[in-house]
């Protein structure tokens, strides 16, 4: 039994309740047992006391889209190294995408991951289970058995189910188990050999473009199927102005629809590719500045529910290639919060809205107890200096891979302490 922990003199920011004020939090046995806003808190004699000195105390972040390399590509990332990166980034829980070797498409693999994560990772790892076997878009997996083993949602990860009929069946069956379908929408035939956003910039680089419609057409289809089947549906990551409009319209009719966005699409645009910089070749392509402004507005207005890192470790062998031949993806667990705070510092989106998209909204979508500061909630918390200046150095990141889309970026805001179930798993050292 560990000692009770009191965090006092903190600026408590809890998006679930809309709280943003000074206070203290008492943690016992891994949970929040008392919360004092203004008033005093009953402190046991043996409590350890942390003076937050006015730093922000927020719920630990819940990242809805993280790829690891374990099992199968441990040299890119293990659950342990992803856990280190997450802890340093203030991410106390993340949904792990099923794109591993073997793929997470079976209850036994889910069970392995749950056990392995508990044994090796500092943070909570929540497996997403494949919608189809081998994520190949052909045959359904065993949704019920995988849920029993600990899967928190269903997703084919990087892959997108092309068959409308199969997707309809999957959604009906998922609704049967009340599981959320998290789907990355890409029309593969339309995307073709495209490797970046379609437009002048792709033309200048001589690269094939991916039309925005390759995202919006299957998104429209999915939202119609979601209404038809009654499933809880989360659009994994949207990137275009058109997608924001489509989701907004569908949400007005169907409350079971939510949408996520990668931090990359909020902070970067196609011009960041510069001269073939492959760290900016991403699963959801970076779009135009107009699209970026539209998704920021989508986040601000609540059309977009969640922000995730899309953490996707890739080694230099597959990244140091000509752009069209390089693999997609960038790491992002450690930079997620600081990058998201750019939107706050630029006065584009309020702090509570940004944090909500990484705490209480993902928790609600996934049905988790975490993601809020309230009596009885898990003590997954972060202390944040909102203005701490730092520069990203790829060699100092904790991930086993170096493919950061924020290399050398100057950021403001850093996690000073990360607490998972009452235990400090990361402490910032100057």
């Amino acid at each position: 039994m560990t000692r009770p922990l009191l965090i006092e003199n903190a600026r408590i920011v809890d998006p679930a309740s809309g709280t943003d004020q000074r206070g203290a939090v008492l943690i016992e046995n891994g949970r929040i047992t008392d919360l004092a806003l203004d008033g005093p808190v009953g402190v046991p004699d043996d409590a350890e006391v942390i003076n937050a000195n006015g730093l922000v105390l927020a719920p630990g972040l819940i990242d809805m889209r993280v790829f690891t390399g374990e099992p199968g590509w441990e040299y890119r990332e293990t659950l342990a190294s992803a856990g280190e990166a997450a802890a340093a980034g203030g991410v106390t829980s993340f949904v792990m995408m099923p794109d591993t070797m073997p793929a997470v498409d079976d209850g036994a693999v889910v069970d392995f991951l749950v056990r392995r994560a508990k044994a090796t990772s500092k943070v909570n790892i929540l497996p997403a289970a494949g919608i189809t076997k081998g994520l190949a878009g052909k045959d359904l997996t065993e949704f019920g058995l995988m849920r029993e083993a600990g899967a928190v949602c269903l997703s084919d990860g990087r892959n997108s189910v092309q068959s409308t009929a199969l997707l309809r069946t999957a959604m009906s069956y998922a609704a049967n188990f009340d599981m959320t379908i998290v789907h990355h929408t890409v029309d593969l035939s339309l995307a073709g050999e495209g490797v970046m956003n379609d437009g002048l910039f792709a033309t200048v680089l001589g690269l094939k473009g991916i039309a925005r419609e390759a995202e919006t057409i299957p998104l429209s289809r999915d939202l119609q199927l979601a209404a038809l089947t009654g499933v809880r549906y989360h659009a994994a990551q949207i990137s275009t102005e058109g997608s924001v409009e489509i989701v907004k319209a569908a949400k007005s009719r169907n409350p079971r629809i939510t949408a996520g966005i990668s931090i990359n699409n909020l902070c970067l645009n196609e011009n960041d590719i510069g001269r073939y910089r492959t760290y900016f070749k991403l699963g959801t392509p970076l779009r135009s500045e107009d699209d970026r402004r539209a998704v920021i507005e989508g986040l601000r207005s609540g059309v977009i529910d969640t922000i995730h890192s899309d953490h996707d470790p890739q080694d230099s062998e597959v990244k140091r290639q000509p752009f069209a031949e390089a693999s997609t993806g960038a790491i992002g667990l450690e930079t997620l919060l600081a990058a998201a705070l750019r939107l706050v510092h630029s006065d584009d989106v309020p702090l509570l809205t940004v944090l909500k998209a990484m705490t209480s909204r993902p928790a609600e979508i996934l049905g988790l107890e975490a993601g809020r500061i309230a009596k009885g909630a898990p003590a997954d918390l972060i202390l944040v200096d909102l203005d701490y200046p730092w520069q990203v150095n790829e060699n100092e990141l904790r991930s086993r891979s170096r493919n950061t889309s924020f290399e050398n970026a100057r950021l403001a805001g850093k996690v000073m302490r990360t607490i998972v179930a009452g235990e400090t798993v990361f402490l910032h050292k100057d």
Partner: protein
Amino acid sequence: MADTPASTSGDFPPFRQRHLISIADLKQHEIIDLLDRAERMVPVSRQERKSLPTLSGKTQINLFFEPSTRTQSSFEIAGKRLGALVVNMSVKTSSVSKGETLVDTAATLNAMRPDVLVVRHGAAGAVELLSQKVGCSVINAGDGAHEHPTQALLDALTIRRHKGRISGLTVAICGDIANSRVARSNLLLLGALHVRTRVIAPRNLLPPGIEHLATEVFTDMEEGLRGVDVVMMLRLQHERASGKMIPSVREYYRFYGLDAEKLAFANPDAIVMHPGPMNRGVEIDPAIADGARSVITDQVEMGVAVRMAVLDALLSGDQA
């Protein structure tokens, strides 16, 4: 022989670029400088002893990931006429599928200490990537649908020799613009020299944003060719395109193939160009290709002169 300078580079200020990857990297004066240098190389290839040993002792490696007979031999002849040791390495398959990455290949070749690598690769940006990993000059001999800078330079030299000038002319580039590195390099180069550029193609062969790269965009050959000074035809990859990008060769030729009827809309003294290899009867009528207004074989000759000039400029600049 007597009127040929011993070294052409000596008369020019040092060329400030280490590589030639993209026309976009060149300033207007550098383009003109290269054209002037190339002009001085033309007589070298026309004399009996076609040599000017300014690159004696230098090693040039031609590294072609995509097969190309004419560009590779043009670079080879250019290097040899300047006295360089020229080695051809053709990489038949994608090195990636064989396990060696492009960066590995670059490191291996770099260890052999060449002075210049001439590289063609099927992927846009591949030559630039390679240039970052080697210690010598790199010349882009075509990277995917990105650029083919020496083609644009030889086209400009051909135009200048036939028209006496470049600025103020109107040049139409016709055909598969979307997949053409030749079109991109030419649009950049001609734009830098104040040429009115037109692209003419069916909509599905025009890449997005092309209106920002060309002065005017046309989908009709007759309209587009009206009053032009130069007609530049592009090769259609008809084996790949037929049924996918265009319905048939027959239909393409009817609407976009250059024949006498369409050429009649251009200025009476308009010249006809093609980067080769030509598909006679696909994008161009054989009678036009081999006719009086065709300067296609001149382009090939200017190709050697331009490549000599580029090799000389990059390698003599290296010493400065």
